[in-house]
Each structure stands twice: as C-alpha cells, then as structure tokens.
C-alpha cells in the first residue's frame, strides 16, 4: 500500500513538473532568449539620409535593434514582418531600428524600397558596429529596454506579425 502511495506521489510530482515546465516554456515566444540585462553596446550610426542616430538618446521606451543584410535569406524573409510591427506600434512604444551590416546604400535601397519602404535603416558601413554587438548570426534582433539594457534576443528570423510575437511585444510595452 505504501509503495503504491509512493508511486502515486512520484507520478504527481512528475506531472507537476511537466505542468510547470509547460508553463515556463510557453512564457516567451519560440526562439526568444532572455538576456542578462547588461548595458547595450554603443550604437551610433547614420541612416541612409545621413542623419545620426544614437541608442543612448533612445531612453524611456523599448527599442528593437535588428541586424541584417540583403544577401541573407532569412533576413529577406523576415523583413515584411518587421515592416508590419513598424506599422503597428508607435515609436514611443517600440522603436524599430534596422542596422544593415556592411552593404552599400544602393543594395539596401534596392531591397527595402519594395519590402519595408517606411523604415529608414542605419548603415553599419564597415560592419564593425555589428561585430561589437556580437549577434549570433544574421538576422538577429535585440530588445533593449527603456533603460538601455539588453533584455531579449531573437534567434534568427521570426514571424513578428503573428499573434504569439505581437502579444509578447504588447506585454513588453505595457510594462
């Protein structure tokens, strides 16, 4: 009898752990990593119009910093979904910042004009800013919190315009 009860208790514990695991696993959308909240590296670049943009001046709201290149297949696939969230959220809620890695203006314009015409990308002309941020590859998207700390990293390209990711962003900006 006692052995049966012990087994029952063990099964209960396993089920509890499974439930807890399921709950924790479902908190963040697929492919998002929680970062340690260290300060975001410096990000000061000019956009295609030659206007300077500085991350340290973007406090008080979340910033989506996205590294990409036109030659990267997943980047091309993901870009329309970034345009979608650009249209959906105000810059004072979530500022979308595209950082093109080491390509020319002609190349970038040729691609973005048809896919994300409203977003003015920053040009990391020599690629060194991208390297300082150490993304895990291209594309890579960082969520920088209103205090300038790195909070989340998206692994590879993500469908940002789907409910799972939209809900996540809404939850962020509500904080």
């Amino acid at each position, binding site marked *: 009898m*006692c*052995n049966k009860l*012990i087994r029952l208790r063990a099964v*209960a514990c396993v089920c509890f752990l499974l439930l807890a695991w399921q709950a924790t696993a479902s908190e963040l959308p697929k492919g998002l990593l929680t970062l340690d909240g260290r300060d975001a590296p410096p990000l000061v670049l000019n956009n295609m119009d030659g206007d300077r943009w500085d991350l340290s001046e973007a406090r008080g709201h979340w910033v989506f910093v996205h590294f990409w290149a036109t030659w990267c297949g997943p980047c091309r696939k993901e870009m329309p979904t970034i345009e979608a969230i650009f249209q959906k959220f105000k810059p004072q809620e979530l500022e979308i910042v595209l950082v093109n*890695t080491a390509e*020319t203006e002609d190349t970038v314009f040729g691609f973005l004009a048809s896919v994300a015409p409203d977003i003015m990308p920053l040009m990391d002309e*020599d690629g060194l800013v991208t390297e300082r941020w150490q993304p895990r590859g*291209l594309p890579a998207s960082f969520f920088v919190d209103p205090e300038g700390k790195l909070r989340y990293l998206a692994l590879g390209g993500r469908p940002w315009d789907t409910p799972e990711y939209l809900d996540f962003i809404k939850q962020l900006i509500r904080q």
Partner: protein
Amino acid sequence: MTTLKRITPWYAWLWLAALIAVVPACADKSDDGVKTAAPEAAAPADPVQQPPSPRYEDDQVKARVVMRTHDQLTAFYLGREFNRAAIDRILETCFVTPLVHNKTVDVLWLELDEWQFSQGDKVIPRIKRDYWPDQWRDTGLTQAHQSTFGWTLMPEVRDLRLDEGVGGSVVIPMQTRPFTMTMKFHTGADKQGPVKTVVFEDLQCVTN
C-alpha cells in the same frame, strides 16, 4: 523594472498540494521505494551515424551539407562586389557549407575544433579564420567586405538552443579525392550530456 516572469500556474500548485495531501508521507520510511520510482538515466545514443547522403536527421538533430561550386561562390561574392583577386583566393580553397538544426536538445554545442575532416587515416586541417586577414591585405579587400565574408563563415563556437539552426561555410584546402566530415557535438548547457556524432562520407570539393 518589471520583466516577463516565468510563473508556475496556480492550478499546478493546487493540483500538487491536493495530491500530496491525500498521499501519506510514508516514502521516507522506504528508501528503496523512492529509488525505484526515480527515472533511469537515458542511455547514450549511438555515437556514430552514417547518413547515406549529405542530409542527416534524427529526433535530435537535422544536418545538411552543401558543397559550393566555383560558379556559385563567384556569383555570390561578385554580387556583393568583392574584387576579383579576393574571389580568386576564395576559389583556391574548398568551401563546405553545413546547416545544422537543433531539434530537441536543450543545448547542442557547435564547436568547429571538435569537427574533423579526413581521408582514411589522414586528417585534413581546417582553414581557420586567422588565415583570411593576410589574403585580404594582399588583395586589398575592404573592411566592409571582410565583415560580410566573416558572416558567411560558420561560427567557431555556438551553443545552439532548442529549435535554433545555424549555417555557414567551413573551409578546407582544395581536395581532389573524396573526404569524410565528422561533426561532434557536446550536449547540455554544461556539455555533460551524451556526445552526438554525425558523419558525412564521400564528400567532394566541387569546382564546376
């Protein structure tokens, strides 16, 4: 600053409390019983797999190998406006482009130094990233192009998370005979899980 917290749902706690409440705490009286209830450690997987083609997939890992022809490499780098001399340096070597996807392992360690290229007993040394700066200096490749080139290479080390994939080129000296690529992956955040090995045989450097 509030962050998204990982919260165990209330119903899970309630369920556990209810079950513990109805089960008397007699497990302490029987160590054997508790041990019996513990899950057994999973047996390590077969360390060596032999895929019949340049694709491999099991329940943990998906891998594919693409061999780039000279035409493909030339088209890609010319399209990125690399100069001809730099492209010629690239074509002197053999680009192997694996794509690896971690399907179910919590952390799958990509560590290129754990991979081996071989022909029978002969080991083929990998051409590492430190080979390229001299080539680019000789050919006058700009910093922007060097950066682009760097992103097209496979990362040296990557803790591939669940459902994360990675692809990129691994470079070896040009080979005229078929060779074997043995990809060895440690698993687990602390690398203490079973080692996973995937072998691709009869790969060939292709020119055109």
